[in-house]
């Protein structure tokens, strides 16, 4: 169910601002750069961890899958043909491993080949835990979080407190946190949202 009448997910509007960075990170990893690998792990751990959790697996199972995904990436990093699309590779790999764990936890034999897995997953219903729409949303949220990191600290604080916390902070709380008057929060919020959009649009 979408909050928008036309069920818009608009992935084309939320462009990846990090594909070039991702390609640079993968290429640096191929040259043995430890810090590039650490950055890649930090950048994608939350997205990878979110997929099995959203599918209904426990935190422990999700952590296992996270480690399996990065182990697979480590083993196959030289074979990835499009480094700039590493996000898609990670999401797909996580999806497969989540599906295998999901089936195992229910006593089903795991599909023997990736083709069988793909066939099964293609028949998933739209409201199933691993439906494409769910994964698109998780990826978009990942892109927004990544873009948020590129803003200055004040904007990060304002937008995180208002929109990302479990209980949305009041303007009074936000004002106290950043040390401004409460009436300043609304225009500041609007300005920070504009900056976030510019980052997401690669401007």
């Amino acid at each position: 169910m979408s909050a928008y009448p036309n069920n818009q997910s608009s992935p084309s509007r939320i462009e990846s601002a990090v594909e070039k960075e991702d390609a640079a990170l993968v290429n640096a990893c191929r040259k043995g750069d430890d810090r590039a690998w650490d950055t890649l792990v930090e950048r994608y751990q939350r997205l990878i961890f979110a997929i099995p959790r959203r599918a209904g697996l426990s935190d422990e199972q999700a952590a296992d899958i996270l480690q399996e995904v990065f182990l697979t990436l480590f083993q196959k990093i030289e074979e990835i043909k499009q480094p700039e699309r590493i996000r898609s590779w990670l999401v797909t790999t996580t999806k497969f491993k989540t599906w295998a764990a999901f089936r195992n936890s229910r006593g089903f034999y795991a599909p023997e080949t990736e083709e069988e897995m793909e066939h099964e997953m293609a028949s998933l219903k739209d409201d199933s835990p691993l439906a494409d729409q769910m994964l698109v949303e998780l990826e978009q949220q990942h892109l927004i979080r990544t873009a948020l990191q590129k803003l200055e600290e004040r904007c990060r604080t304002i937008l995180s407190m208002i929109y990302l916390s479990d209980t949305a902070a009041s303007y009074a709380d936000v004002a106290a946190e950043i040390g401004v008057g409460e009436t300043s929060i609304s225009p500041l919020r609007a300005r920070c949202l504009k900056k976030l959009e510019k980052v997401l649009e690669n401007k």
Partner: protein
Amino acid sequence: MRDHDGVAKIMQTEQIIHLMRRDDSVDAPQDAIAWSKNIFRTRVTAPEKTLVQRIFATLQIDLAPGKAAFGERSASALKARQLLYVADDAAVDIRISDFAGRLDIHGQILGGGYEYSKIRLFDDGHSLETASDDLGEFQFRSAAAGSYTMTITSEKKEIVIQNIDLH
């Protein structure tokens, strides 16, 4: 539709807000993140290929000043202390003489292949550099007392002489 762009803009902003509000993701456990990072450090890296073969020299002779080498007449005994090192198929003859409290070092690399080599004499606080000539001879002047390492670097080999005690 003049307002089309404005409507589209509002929808984009609203969509971003909507996605942020629905974001219930959390960071993975720190130990899982640390494990994932450490995988990379377990990779086996091939040792760097080096064109220079390193050879550690061994001391064969250490003659104090005034002492003749075996078979020499005492009259020909040097005023300098003599050290002789062997490194593979080469030998390094080092003579250390004391000149008004400062130490001069004359040396020669015997065996060929070390002409015009870079020679470095260093310890924690000092570093001196010179080069050998066409006869493999070299010298350092006014070195301070101490325990040094000497490296003699040719195109393909490096002789390392450790614990040269200058006094």
